[in-house]
């Protein structure tokens, strides 16, 4: 099994490392921030641009470019750290938060310095009560040590960081819904444009970055943009933490350079399929990503390669399903999640998700008709691209992709009047 140098997990995998400020400092913690304070914000943005760092939350947008959209005007600006990790099959941010909170806090400070923000919010998933406690404690340590607060390390850079706990809605991981939620409103996505970079939190310029994205920053500063860009593929630089779940022998988080193959991830790192059964399907990037089949095992786990096979790297949640998994059931179970989590703001998503679930449920129960398959396809197409946020495109991915790759399985449900598989309790969607 190939062994790679870990960046984000490096500290926490050391024996005895507990993630306290002292621990973090012994590994060189907060030296990056010290360096950054001697640079101009524009120089910091330039370094991050050159590193090729892309957002680890799902969309993979270049981080440096996102920062550069912040208008250089006086007035408040905000950074929001998206720690609302809710994508089914994804559990990497949780590990980063719970085991090395200062890595992320230092990243927040670097990002705020670069964009000129004096206030940052960590929007943490409501269920992460342990993470919220750990973050709060880490923040107190950082404030006490003068690393967060007024005149950080003797500079004139001030930063106030607040931990804001979510209340349990998946949609609040969508960046504009997250902003609404911090503002105390109902978690619903906003219409874009205007984009958060111009009218974000409290209508002020705002950057929203994922936990993993921010955690990379101290390392980029300390070890240089060229070092970072040398890891991974030319367009997908750095390492990536993949949360592998499902029918594998060793589910868990794996930090690897981007670009290694799906095959390597599943069969080497995760130890192969449980019970040495046949692999049937893979979701490579969280529940919103299209299903892939074993023929795509040699696809690289980087943004471009996965996009080329019509799926997405997304949140890095790799869910593996073996030959005994019913694909209609799998699509239904994901769509039940999406139906439950649709915020209800826009018509196609609100009405479409329920309709799809009703059709899928009928098929799974053997009450479907062949014409339902075209109807499913058509309803999905009527959602695609017509919704306020990306949720609409996300919720149709499991349906469209399973219909594409496993149409005969749908037909078998309809013609055989029911699900040909045993009820599948073994598929554990780590969520």
């Amino acid at each position, binding site marked *: 099994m190939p062994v790679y140098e870990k960046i984000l997990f490096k500290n926490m995998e050391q024996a005895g490392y507990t993630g306290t400020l002292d621990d973090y400092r012994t590994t060189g913690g907060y030296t990056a921030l010290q360096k950054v304070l001697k640079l101009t914000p524009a120089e910091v943005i330039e370094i991050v641009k050159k590193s090729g760092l892309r957002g680890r939350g799902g969309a993979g947008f270049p981080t440096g470019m996102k920062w550069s959209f912040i208008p250089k005007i006086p007035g408040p600006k905000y950074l929001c750290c998206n720690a609302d990790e809710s994508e089914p099959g994804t559990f990497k941010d949780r590990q980063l938060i719970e085991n090395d909170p200062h890595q992320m806090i230092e990243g927040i400070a670097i990002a705020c310095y670069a964009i000129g923000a004096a206030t940052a919010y960590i929007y943490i998933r409501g269920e992460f009560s342990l993470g919220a406690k750990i973050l709060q404690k880490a923040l107190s340590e950082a404030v006490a040590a003068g690393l967060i607060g007024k005149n950080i390390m003797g500079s004139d850079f001030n930063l106030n960081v607040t931990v804001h706990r979510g209340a349990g809605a998946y949609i609040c991981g969508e960046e504009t819904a997250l902003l609404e939620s911090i503002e105390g409103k109902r978690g619903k996505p906003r219409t874009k444009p205007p984009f958060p970079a111009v009218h974000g939190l409290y209508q002020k310029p705002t950057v929203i970055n994922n936990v993993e994205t921010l955690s990379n920053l101290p390392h980029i500063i300390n070890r240089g943009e060229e070092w970072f860009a040398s890891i991974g593929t030319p367009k997908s630089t750095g390492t990536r933490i993949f949360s592998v779940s499902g029918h594998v022998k060793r589910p868990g988080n794996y930090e690897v350079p981007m670009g290694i193959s799906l095959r390597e991830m599943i069969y080497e790192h995760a130890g192969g399929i449980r019970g040495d059964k046949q692999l049937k399907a893979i979701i490579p990037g969280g529940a919103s990503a299209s299903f892939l089949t074993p023929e795509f095992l040699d696809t690289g786990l980087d943004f471009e390669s996965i996009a080329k096979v019509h799926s997405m790297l997304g949140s890095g949640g790799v869910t593996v399903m073996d030959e005994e998994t019913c694909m209609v059931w799998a699509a239904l179970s994901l769509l039940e999640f999406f139906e439950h989590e649709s915020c*209800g703001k*826009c018509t196609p998503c609100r009405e479409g998700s329920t309709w799809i679930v009703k059709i899928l449920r009928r098929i799974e129960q053997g009450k479907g008709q062949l014409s339902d398959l075209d109807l499913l396809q058509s309803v999905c197409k009527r959602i695609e691209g017509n919704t306020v946020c990306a949720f609409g495109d996300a919720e149709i991915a499991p349906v469209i992709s399973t219909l594409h790759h496993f149409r005969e399985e749908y037909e078998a449900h309809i013609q055989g009047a029911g699900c040909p598989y045993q009820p599948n309790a073994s598929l554990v969607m780590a969520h």
Partner: protein
Amino acid sequence: MPVKLKVNNQEIEVVPGTLLIEAVKQVGVDVPHFCYSPKLKPDANCRMCLVEIEKMPKLQTSCSTQAAEGMVVLTDSPRVKEAQFSVMEFLLGNHPLDCPECDQGGECQLQDFAHKHSPTTSRFTEKKRTFEKEFFGPLIEKEMNRCVACMRCVRYCDEVMDVNALGAVDRGNVVQIGGFAHHDLDCEFCGGCIQICPVGALTSRLSMYTYRPWQVKKTETICNYCSDGCQLTLETIDDQVVRVSSAMGTGRNNGDLCARGYFGYGYVNHKERMSRPIVRQKNRAMEVTWEIAVEKAVSGLSAVRAQYGPQAIGGIISSHCTNEELYLFQKLMRQVIGTPHVDSSARYGYINAVRVMQEIFGTTRLIRYEEILQSDLIFSFSSEMAETHPITALKVKEAVKKNGAQLITVGAYNQQGDLYRSHLPKLAHPHLQVQPGTDGVAILGLMKAVVESSLQTTGRGAYFDRMKGHLLEIPFERIVAITGVPESLYREVAIRYAGAKRGILIFGRAILRGEEGYKNVRNLCNLAILAGQVMKPGAGILALAEEANELGAIEMGAVPEYLPGLMPAIPGGKTLVEMLDAAERGEIKALYVVGENPLRSLPQKQVSEAIKNLDILICQDLFHTETASMAHIILPAASFVEKEGRFTNHEGEVQRVRRAMDPLGNAKPDWEIFSMIANQMISRNSLAIAPFHYKSASEVWREVSLTMPSGWPKFSSNTMASQMAAYCECPPSTNTLHDPIVTLGRFHLQIGQTLFHSGKMSTYADGLQTLCPDDFLLIHPEDAEELKLAEGEKVTITSDVGSTVLPVKFSPKMARRTLFSSEHFGLMAKRLLPFSVDPVTQVPYGDRGFVILSRVETPVAEVAIYV
């Protein structure tokens, strides 16, 4: 620089910032939509208005996309049509097929678009989603199965009304409109959510199942409750008003209404309306024909006129009458009968504003709603405006919330308001909370702070110096001690007001009907002059009149000091209170009372003594009022729905009132009755006056137009400048500073108008009666807790003159140790308060005073007046 773009292959030009949905109207395209409303911020949730824009991969919502230079837009491409089909299919999937019993049927956007943008069959074969039936209270029907979740109601309630009574409950496919956090709907009941709902999810229970939109006759008219001057569309079937609406974009109100406007029409068809003239002889009331009634009235008036002279006759008229009627009434009194004693309900307060503003500026027309919207600072001395003048308050809210104007409020209320009610002090920075009844002293404090700041306006030398000299004599410590507002706040606010680009000062009942109202209005005008907030575009003063046509009443000459057109009446006649005093002394022997009820509005005992002394009392009204019950002749009048005419609102806007249906029974419009009486008076007394041969209200209006000064109702700012210059030459009036009254153990009681009622008339409207069936006493919850009072519990309030029992309601807007009582029903609380009359304008004051509050231990009679 206009923006050029191409829509469906046609070039158009629009101003920058125009939303596409508005821009494409230029080429005749009406993009279908549910959630968009020009009143609201774009939410782009229904996705019905998607259009195709060149170079954009996805379809864009035209409700949220601004037109940009060089844009190429398609509103009818196959992709767009497919998207519209999609949204309609999604919406119709779960929508019930209950159009035949839905009140929205026939004016429903979903229904209309289904015809245009939807196939005739549905692919949705699943069981429809249904919501459990929930009631939204007595006036609003909520049918969530019909909801398209466009959230216009929720957004309206927040963005426009600032009430936030509605919210979205649950999420996804079961999202529904509810009271925020599942409470019962307890809001301002403005009806805005019903009006803005594109489908039948929210409809009015008052008119439930009574009409189909195509059956109703629609009549455009003006609301006759307050003087906001709102456009109303009366929807009638035969002689029944079935519904009221106001279309967005129309009227001074831009389609917004309040509970009184939207739910308050019921009195028109009330069963107690009088429909036949009544003559009372030897304590026997008899219904008679108009001929007999008029004959009796004229013979009675003629007899008094012959025996005691015309000066023994007086006339009092309501400001709910039209301009034409007010004009004819004063003409009847002055020219035909020959008495100068004519007055109207404008005497109850608004005359204070007109007298002062007329004297200083030569006009009351300084501020229109448009100017409120454009102002950068609004200084409101009417913190109760959201209740008394909901639509003017909406303009203030819009200026503050949408256009970023600053709002400063002055009043006795707390800054905190009730839940689910708008309250202007909540939006104010800061709210100057004065001790009750000390508004006048606060005005002095503000004047003093303005002249002592270095911000004074130039060019007012002598006047300014004189004012300054006078104000310097008043120590700030006294002002602070009396009003309870710190000096620093006076200074901060004064600087901001004087520094505003377009500062607007608004005041209402608290000033007009509080003691020293006339002086306080003068000082408010002085304050505006000193701060330089008059005589410049967009700045000025707005006085809020209480009834629909108070400005009209004064301008038409229905007050003793003015002839029509505000020409001074010399010699002036007696005012309302003076007439009643004169009647008590036996100097006035006949009164003609139109739409007024002095027995309710003024100290009952004295009025009743005065009326008993009369030889003849003629009452003309819709209802059998307390005063009418003492009348010799009662004439049934038509309501505003049943006649033509004009109202002048407090902006000075003269607007048409239109007849929607025939008068009830034998009732007649007031102007017709005046003509009948005038003509009989003329012939019986052989007067050398041209008879009143008016065929219509319009004919009366032609005569009014000739009588009014040239240019009216516009005014010239040149006249204003010279008038103001003349005013600044004369010495300023002074206020006396009273020491604060020791309030130990006592509560300050204020009487006033509430949101759901307007005078007594609204208590005949079933809709409003449901919302507020009786008078109540507002008290701060902590005071209530100290007294161990429960909400709704009856308490006794006692003053030097008597006591009465009222149920308490808790409200955080009440300052500690203050009470508020509504004035619409028994009016018993008012009888407990001291009564006085303004020395200059004879305005009767009696809205506030101190009382002792105690829990009712044993049931007592409703009222006990100590004699």
